[in-house]
């Protein structure tokens, strides 16, 4: 029998009925009455000065109210960006990438606005376009940000990252290391160098970016599909010089986020347009426009490892170079986390890791599920696989020899590893088998990743226990399909003795719910869940006090047990009875508040460690180079699965999403413009890519810092797939790829190249 009533059960998700019936309420489905619609005029240059913008023809188009340009924002702080406010809401004097917003046509209907947007004429003076880090760092490169105007305190003393060198296109840098790497390399029996390039990706949440904004009684109201309403609120308050209480950001039902909807995206643009035209304005982007709004960083990762003769790691020397695009956005964190993940969950006595992010004239890069970990895992794991070959070791053996054990810190003075990684990896390995297929080249690959998650653990949860015994949760976490509402309802049900269907949810509205740092970094169940649990405990404490007060007895004689308030003489009261006795019938409620911060159990960094373990078997068509997945195994080491079916869905979803970057997906620039800003040319995993043999193994040891021993879920498989697929294909074709994705052309070229490529 389970210890628990609600958590640990695969209850039906609380929002799935509405979603199955098309009633879920995404922001683009709920335009405000009378709202005007904005269409964005986008730069048709990668790098240029704007000489003039002629809006006259657009203004004369039927239904058009205004054409807003950067010059109209002079009474605002016209930039956003949470690390470095380098991102103009609308281009000011220059454009830094193809597709950058230059103007917005505001009209009655979306169609009128779009038609008129074609009539806006922009006169450009071309600048040399820096399309990749190589060009951007070459001698004589043209500066993309001639002045680093808005470096905030984040780049000040004590930060892990530094601004890039002056008068270069280096955006920022960071380093991580310990021990004497040079001495260790000199003493190594074998030194292996491996380089793997990870492609730029578009996370492709199926719902594109959309927002509507208006000013009501001096308050800016914005509805959007942001994952981070409180981060957006901060940007908007700065832009409009408003107090935080005068900025109301509501995150609606989100049609997929995966990090792509973190921080501000088009909310500043919609709000600035509303400010300029003096009316509510709605902007809903197409997929192509969304690909011009944000992407994931591309990475060049080079790993050199010194081993002793038995395969033990002596030192790793790693460089990570990010192509971060035109603006900083969250890539500061992407770069830092890349270094924290790049050496894998291994005991590394000496490490030198150096990261650089380079501005280029491409779509600005930011978060994507598992960033930093998925970027670096293929190079780090391939490096071990190749070294194992050279040393005559089995690839499982070399990992088991070096994997950090439970309780060891892989980075000095950080939270120790809270998982049995060797057992997890062995589980995946043992589940893999090659079932021979005629005329296919087959191979097996597997690997492990560990990534620091949880971000900042600040969360404030408010639970209202109503007089009839039902509850309302006020929480700033966005529901984007990860199932957080269901999980939180299960936690409240568990803690207060309710049915999870008795829990309702307030809108994710910054004027209503308590502060929430972000919805990301796999922090919702394990960190936010703790704050919800604590809010329930606050309610229990109040109920006990209220019952004691009504009975005119000491509070020490009353307690909470089994979902009820217990008195000294065997009295058992339901919560609703206590409320009715204290307030009187049909009135009152108990409001519980729970908070988490970087204190107590969550003081150590990182707040959470997320485990990624995956294995695959692939078949390669010897004639075409096409790769198919025959088998996929993931191990979800989640401490405690609060909803096992949901965990399984998150785990397989992450694995299949990562398959995209491993086999198909890559944003391509073969000139100044993105060459594949559509779903025909940007090919994502389809249902026919799902292998016949799939298993997601759930490991529950209740060893995490979250509620009931939970650990993070949802990014792990994403972080380990790249290396596993790369190794499997390498073993199938006898060549080590040096980049992803493993498209048929690339694999065919590798198969037919003369020499083995191993570095």
């Amino acid at each position, binding site marked *: 029998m389970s210890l628990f009533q609600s958590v640990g059960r695969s209850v039906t998700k609380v929002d*799935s009925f509405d979603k*199955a019936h098309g009633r879920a309420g995404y922001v683009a489905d709920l335009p405000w009455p009378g709202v005007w619609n904005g269409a964005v005029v986008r730069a048709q240059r990668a790098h240029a000065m704007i000489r003039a913008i002629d809006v006259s023809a657009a203004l004369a188009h039927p239904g058009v109210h205004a054409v807003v340009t950067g010059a109209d924002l002079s009474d605002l702080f016209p930039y956003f960006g949470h690390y470095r406010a380098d991102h103009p809401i609308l281009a000011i004097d220059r454009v830094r990438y193809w597709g950058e917003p230059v103007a917005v046509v505001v009209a009655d209907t979306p169609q009128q606005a779009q038609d008129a947007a074609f009539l806006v004429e922009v006169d450009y003076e071309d600048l040399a376009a820096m399309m990749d880090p190589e060009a951007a760092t070459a001698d004589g490169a043209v500066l993309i940000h001639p002045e680093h105007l808005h470096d905030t305190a984040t780049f000040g003393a004590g930060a892990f990252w530094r601004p890039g060198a002056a008068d270069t296109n280096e955006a920022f840098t960071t380093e991580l290391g310990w021990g004497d790497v040079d001495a260790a390399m000199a003493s190594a029996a074998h030194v292996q160098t491996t380089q793997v390039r990870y492609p730029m990706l578009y996370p492709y949440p199926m719902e594109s970016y959309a927002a509507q904004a208006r000013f009501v009684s001096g308050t800016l109201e914005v509805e959007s599909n942001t994952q981070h309403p409180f981060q957006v609120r901060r940007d908007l308050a700065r832009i409009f010089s408003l107090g935080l209480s005068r900025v109301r950001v509501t995150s609606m039902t989100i049609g997929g986020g995966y990090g792509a909807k973190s921080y501000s995206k088009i909310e500043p643009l919609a709000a600035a347009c509303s400010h300029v035209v003096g009316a509510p304005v709605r902007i809903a982007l197409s997929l192509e426009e969304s690909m011009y709004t944000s992407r994931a960083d591309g990475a060049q990762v080079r790993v050199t490892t010194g081993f002793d003769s038995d395969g033990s790691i002596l030192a790793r020397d790693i460089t990570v170079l990010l192509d971060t695009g035109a603006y900083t956005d969250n890539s500061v964190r992407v770069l830092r986390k890349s270094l924290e993940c790049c050496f894998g969950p291994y005991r590394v006595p000496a490490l030198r890791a150096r990261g650089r992010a380079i501005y280029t004239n491409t779509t600005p890069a930011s978060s994507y599920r598992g960033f930093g970990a998925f970027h670096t895992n293929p190079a780090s794991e391939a490096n071990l696989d190749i070294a194992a070959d050279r040393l005559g070791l089995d690839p499982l053996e070399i990992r088991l020899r070096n994997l950090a054990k439970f309780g060891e810190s892989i980075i000095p003075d950080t939270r120790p590893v809270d998982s049995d990684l060797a057992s997890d990896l062995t589980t995946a390995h043992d589940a893999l088998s090659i079932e021979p297929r005629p005329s296919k080249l087959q191979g097996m690959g597997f690997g492990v990743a560990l990534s620091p998650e949880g971000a900042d653990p600040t969360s404030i949860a408010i639970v209202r226990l109503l007089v009839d015994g039902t509850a309302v949760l006020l929480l700033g976490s966005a529901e984007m399909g990860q199932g957080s509402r269901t999980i939180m309802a299960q936690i409240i049900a568990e803690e207060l003795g309710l049915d999870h269907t008795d829990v309702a949810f307030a809108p994710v509205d910054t004027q209503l719910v308590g502060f929430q740092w972000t919805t990301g970094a796999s922090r919702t169940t394990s960190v936010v869940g703790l704050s919800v649990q604590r809010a329930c405990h606050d309610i229990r404490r109040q109920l006990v006090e209220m019952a004691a007060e009504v009975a005119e007895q000491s509070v020490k004689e009353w307690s909470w047990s089994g979902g009820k308030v217990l008195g000294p003489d065997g009295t058992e009261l339901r919560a609703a009875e206590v409320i009715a006795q204290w307030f009187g019938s049909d009135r009152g409620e108990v409001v519980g508040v729970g908070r988490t911060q970087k204190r107590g159990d969550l003081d150590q960094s990182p707040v959470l460690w997320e485990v990624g373990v995956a294995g695959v078997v692939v078949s390669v068509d010897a004639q075409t180079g096409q790769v198919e997945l025959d088998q996929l195994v993931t191990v979800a080491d989640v401490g405690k699965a609060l909803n096992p079916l949901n965990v399984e869905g998150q785990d397989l979803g992450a694995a299949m999403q990562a398959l995209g970057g491993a086999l198909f997906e890559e944003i391509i620039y073969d000139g100044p413009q993105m060459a594949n800003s559509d779903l025909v040319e940007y090919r994502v995993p389809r249902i026919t890519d799902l292998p016949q043999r799939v298993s997601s193994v759930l490991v529950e040891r209740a060893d995490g810092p979250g509620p009931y021993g939970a650990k993070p879920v949802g990014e792990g498989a994403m972080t380990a797939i790249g290396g596993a697929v790369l190794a499997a294909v390498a073993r199938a074709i006898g060549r080590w790829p040096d980049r992803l994705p493993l498209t048929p052309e690339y694999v065919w070229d590798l198969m037919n190249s003369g020499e083995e490529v191993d570095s």
Partner: protein
Amino acid sequence: MSEHAIRARINGKDVECTVQARTPLATMLRDNLGLYGTKVSCGIQVCGACTVLVDGLPVSSCTYLAVDVDGRVVTTIEGAAPDRQSSSVVQQAFIDCGAIQCGYCTPGYVLAVTALLEENPTPSDDEARHFLDGNICRCTGYGHIMDAVRRAATIRGSEQ
């Protein structure tokens, strides 16, 4: 831009609507009729999010012209269930199997699977995958969606 009055039977009701020749069916459903259950994602007939049924057959309403439904029968997600409180077999299977995460692909998937089972009540896994290859889901990794297809086929078979 020429305007056209069209008449269609949408979710069991006769509807009249004036649209431009270029107006996609999805735009008519959403903006003219307020049927926001139909989602648009890729806009170029690849992802299947906008799938609706026209005379029982799945079409991509993002590129199917509204004028082309004149005189036809259209089913959107709002018309998939027998009534507002209950779910169709396919909807219920998606709910029960955990096949819904963000939900953005779900309306299109529900209608595509409905059409699949009309055409082939007992599809093999390969037949189902082939039929549904035009419906992309970014969240689930497709495993629970395949579970839902199998479950819907089984329950549908047992009810007939």
